[in-house]
């Protein structure tokens, strides 16, 4: 086979031009700001003792069934969030697991539920707006009347939160809704209400973020007051501070979340993915809008096509 130098150069140039053409200033989708009155939770893994009261409470107040991973089916023991388990406690264990909140030969607990992201990938992905972010309090909610069950939200979510009822003939997507049915009545999410140690507390995200930063400045070994159930309330517990990883997970990750995490063990070890600051929704929408904004490019293209095709076919009848 002979590759003519001319032909090679033609191809290489065409390819490079295509590459270059796609790097032009795109119609960027602005990153989303945090909603002023957004509410959320602060979960402090060092305060959590793994009692799972939050798991039971979530099932009780959302009326979700038990999920069993053992053949005996004696307990509610799912392996992960699933279509019956909006909230779960998982255990990190390394080596002997002897010391709590230590990375090596230690163990730690992590609570997993919907993060109610600032710029949710699921909301961007859903073709029928079944997943919506409330403009008032930022809770990401699900509407089964809109949903077509395409499961694109499951592909999109970096935390793998939306779960689907594959075993049902009329399935829906299931996930934590931050107990919005309780928020309406002036109550707080069940997991925060029933956490005995104050590992999971409810509040306005701006306040929770400030509290989180405050805790990062505590010295390990100090005796400090930690709020229980909600950030602003009467219930307080005193505990000895243990070392924190100097990062509030969810402040910036993936564009930010409304459920913030403080950990004693690196967050990646707890299964919290290391995400960049730019959300996937922003990335995807930027590319999509660049091509299709206002449908200008397609309409122009169609105009050209109609002209050319008409010209080429009008003699063939």
């Amino acid at each position: 086979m002979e590759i003519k130098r001319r032909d090679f150069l033609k191809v290489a140039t065409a390819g490079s031009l295509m590459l270059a053409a796609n790097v032009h200033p795109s119609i960027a989708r602005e990153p989303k700001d945090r909603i002023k009155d957004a509410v959320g939770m602060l979960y402090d893994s060092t305060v959590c003792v793994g009692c799972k009261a939050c798991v039971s409470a979530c099932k009780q107040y959302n009326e979700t069934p038990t999920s069993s991973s053992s053949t005996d089916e004696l307990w509610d023991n799912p392996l992960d969030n699933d279509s019956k388990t909006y909230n779960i406690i998982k255990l990190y264990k390394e080596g002997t697991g002897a010391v709590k909140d230590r990375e090596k030969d230690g163990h730690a607990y992590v609570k997993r539920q919907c993060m109610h992201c600032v710029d949710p990938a699921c909301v961007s992905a859903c073709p029928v707006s079944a997943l919506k972010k409330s403009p008032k309090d930022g809770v990401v909610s699900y509407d089964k009347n809109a949903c077509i069950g395409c499961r694109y939200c499951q592909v999109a979510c970096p935390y793998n939160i939306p779960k689907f009822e594959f075993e049902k003939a009329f399935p829906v997507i299931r996930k934590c809704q931050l107990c919005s049915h309780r928020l309406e009545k002036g109550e707080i999410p069940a997991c925060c209400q029933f956490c005995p140690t104050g590992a999971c507390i409810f509040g306005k995200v701006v306040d929770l973020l400030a509290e989180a930063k405050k805790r990062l400045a505590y010295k390990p070994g100090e005796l400090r007051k930690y709020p229980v159930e909600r950030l602003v309330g009467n219930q307080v517990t005193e505990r000895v501070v243990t070392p924190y990883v100097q990062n509030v997970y969810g402040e910036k990750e993936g564009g930010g979340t409304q459920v913030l995490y403080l950990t004693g063990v690196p967050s990646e070890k707890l299964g919290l993915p290391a995400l960049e600051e730019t959300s996937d929704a922003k990335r995807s929408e930027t590319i999509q809008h660049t091509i299709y904004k206002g449908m200008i490019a397609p309409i122009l293209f169609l105009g050209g096509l109609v002209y050319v095709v008409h010209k080429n076919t009008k003699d063939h009848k």
Partner: protein
Amino acid sequence: MSEESKPIGGEFLTTPFKVLAGFTLFAAVLVLIRYVMGIGAVSNLSDGYPWGIWIAYDVVAGTAIACGGYSMAILVYVLNKGEYHPLIRPALLASVFGYTLAAISIFIDIGRYWQGYNMFLPWYANVNSVMLEVAVCIALYVMVLWIEFAPVFFEGVQKYKSSLPAILTRWDVSGLQKIWSKFLFFFIAVGILLPTMHQSSLGSLMLIAGKKLSPLWQTGFLPLLFLISAIMMGYAIVIFESLFSAVGLKRPKETPMLGKLAGIMPWLIGVYLVVRVLDLIVRGALGHAFAFNVQSLMFWIENALFVYPLVLLMSPENRMKARPLFLSALSILLAGLVYRFNAFLVGFDPGNGWHYFPSFGEIMITMGIISFEILAYLYIVKKFPVLPKAEHA
């Protein structure tokens, strides 16, 4: 135009037909089970892998393989290469059924299918969603394809009445034929716009998967790479189908015309590979290709399937022979298929210990859909004027 093709006749209830019908019926039973007992009853889809081969093959790869009509339309109606006209109808036939069955696959796959029309309601539609654009575009394109294919039916029920059931030949379609010839050009134009949009957007679907898709496939160039590969797969299916059916239906081959067509391929593959490789290098992702895992292995297989036909078809001698044409076309189809499987399944790792391989039920339903497509092809080429007359070979 209308004189160059005719039904090839012959008995359509052959053994292959019966075998394929068997697969189709079996799949139909499985589909019924899916609707009564839920998706989990017949598939291995899970929360970790919510999309499986019904999406990756039936919809994504299947529509790319069905791009024959699109690619030939560009060649014949935009670039005005009239000599390829005899290849238009066979290409359209594969496209019509490929896309229609892809749409049916979607309704088998989505969980709340009875609300599927929500996508077309403005108060539900989310214009930021890539999926919305893909779905609306494909829906419109399926309609356009049937409109483009209609002249075949019109001609068939008028000129080849004897071999068709009476119910089809009752009506006088000459009036419809006239309307069609006046306005067909518009639909041909739309039929080039729409696949350009949705074949690229099928790639864009995976942008939002972010880090869950391996850096070997996750790139802002997904739409461009999907588009180029779809176009080349369109030509490849035309070549493949022409040669396969020539052997299978014992007809003369159209090797010279196909050989000329194949001349486009090295260019397309070349541009595709340049974009693909440069993108990997610029993003610093090439290192993942040497990781000695399933993903890196599939990456090399995918690209080898692109390189092989490139090398083969660069030689004009090879382009004059049927076997190299056939194998190259097959390789391109497999390359595009593997690329799409990789971008949607193999490269997708949600973490949390999930694994996925399609179940028996999933595979049999897909095979039933493919079987039905071949059945439809066989029936229509025997009864309707699709394939070029022997003299045009």
